[in-house]
């Protein structure tokens, strides 16, 4: 691979990203390069900074030092850059965060209409095709409150996908779900990963990681302690913290 094509393949590059919450140093120099089509799973104990890290990538949290470049756009205080980056990164939250006052289809069609300036018919069509992708087109005219947790999370995925993002981020997408609903959400995510979407997933679903992840990052105390392929990480972890943590979640 030539240097040029490697350059073009990079979707996200962070260099020495640091962040503090007051005096708490939550991110202590995170440098990561994520290539197009790569599926990266981030795991680690709670408070290790993994959620905070992915939230800095679309400016839900501001980083204090270091550089973040998303698809060639430098994330700084320029509102236009922030908007560009946000419209390229789809995000799925632990608590779904669907808009309760809007029907399912309106939840999905809203951002394409407001941000991409689509007409109502166009946006509704797009929304329906996204709902088909997550296998719940029949719920289109219900309200979020009438759906199960698993269905709500799939609507949230459809809502993010409707913006046609280049990258999808998942922040513990199955942690708030009842066990029997986790599979339906993971299935959608596996399909998405296999379709070639660039994905960053914070999760402790190690089965999912083993099946689709290209790379695993183990976070602890604001640092990446260890990274590698699923095989290497699961079968032959190097770092004591990784061994200890995996022995508890596997």
């Amino acid at each position: 691979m030539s240097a040029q094509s490697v350059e073009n393949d990079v979707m996200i590059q962070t260099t020495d990203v640091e962040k503090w919450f007051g005096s708490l140093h939550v991110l202590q120099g995170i440098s990561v390069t994520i290539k197009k089509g790569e599926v990266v799973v981030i795991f680690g104990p709670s408070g290790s900074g993994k959620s905070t890290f992915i939230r800095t990538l679309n400016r839900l949290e501001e980083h204090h030092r270091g550089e973040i470049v998303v698809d060639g756009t430098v994330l700084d205080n320029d509102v236009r850059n922030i908007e560009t980056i946000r419209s390229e990164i789809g995000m799925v939250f632990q608590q779904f965060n669907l808009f309760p006052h809007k029907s399912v289809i309106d939840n999905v069609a809203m951002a394409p209409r407001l941000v991409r300036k689509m007409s109502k018919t166009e946006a509704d069509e797009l929304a329906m095709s996204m709902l088909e992708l997550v296998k719940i087109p029949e719920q289109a005219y219900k309200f979020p409150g009438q759906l199960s947790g698993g269905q709500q999370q799939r609507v949230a995925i459809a809502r993010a996908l409707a913006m046609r993002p280049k990258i999808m981020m998942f922040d513990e997408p199955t942690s708030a779900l009842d066990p029997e609903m986790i599979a339906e959400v993971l299935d959608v995510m596996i399909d998405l990963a296999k379709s070639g979407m660039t994905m960053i997933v914070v999760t402790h679903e190690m089965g999912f990681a083993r099946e689709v992840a290209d790379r695993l990052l183990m976070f602890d105390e604001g640092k990446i302690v260890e990274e590698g392929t699923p095989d290497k990480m699961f079968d032959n972890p190097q770092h004591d913290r990784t061994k200890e943590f995996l022995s508890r979640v596997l």
Partner: protein
Amino acid sequence: MTEPTTSSELRPVEDQSFATWVKVNLFSPWYNSVLTVVGAVMVILLLKVAIPFLLTAQWAAVTTNIQILLVGQYPSEELWRVGAGVLPMPFIVGAAWGVWGSMMRTFSVILIVASVLTVISSFFGDSMTPGFVLWFAVSPVLVLLGYTVGRRSFIGPRHVLIGWFLFLMLTLFLLRGFGEDSAMPYVSTSRWGGLLVTILIAQVGIAIVLPLGIVLALARQSNLWFFKAAALVYIEILRATPLLALLFLMLIVSPMFLPDITTPDRLMLAFIAIVMNNSAYMAENIRGGLQSVSKGQIEAAEALGMRGRHVTLFIILPQAIRATIPAIVGQFIILFKDTAVIALVGLLDLLGAAYAIILGQDAWRTADLEVFLFVAAVYWIFTYGMSSVSAGVEKRMRAGAD
């Protein structure tokens, strides 16, 4: 989600006999028996006073002066303008019933019943003009007509609201009139009065107070210090000032500072005082709603690339208003009742008209109780209608939630 089982076989059969009901609800345990007896004695004592009064009451004090109670000193020869101006109201109430369903039903039914009762009572006296009776005869028909229109699928809440705004504008124009020589000569607001003024202040007040409250609440949360400070000062000063004090300030003190050539419209000044006072409270109600919207909602919208004003307009505000509807309607009810305070600065609203009748005419000086009872009943009917709307909204929201 699974439906809860509602099989009637599982439900225990209840003993519905009257004797059992009385025993369980009124006489057990022993202290309930005491309360029941005390309550019964009080009801009997009250009826002993109330029944003879109601039978011998001088209701003529109300029927003879019904014009003053309803429209104040509006010139008799121009009364058609009041009738025409207010005529769209039953239609709009009916349309709102058609669009929003059961939560507007109580209001519509009250309007129909009140109209029918008025028409019936017109047969027992000659104090009401034919035009007046005709208005109340037409109004139930208009309510039902409005309902039929409101039921149509292409008529939505937006149309009702626009219709209501247009109706208010039209009514104000009709009542005010134009030049001296025109077909509709100018009628000074000093001659407007009675229920007409009460209802107008309440409706125009509601139409202004809600948007103003929203703007103030948003300004108070703004990142721009000037808006934030201005809203804060406005809200804190007006919330800490009694409405009556503000009213005196507006009507008595403010003319001293205005140039002599302008004669301030006293009704307008009173209206402004009511709006200022209520908008400060409204802003605080809405601010509570704004704070109740979870951070996750804002993050989800931002993560989708939505801009700040879109997030406020389409995500935060709708949820904030939904969460505060009971408080908003409560504020509307307070505003409606607040209008009575303007009687204390000599304006002839419904309560002011009652004062004018009792104090102004020797014949009715002893009929004060009758007149005030009538006034209280009218206030009660409107506020009851409003709180039934509020209850309906809450019921509907519970059905939509979780």
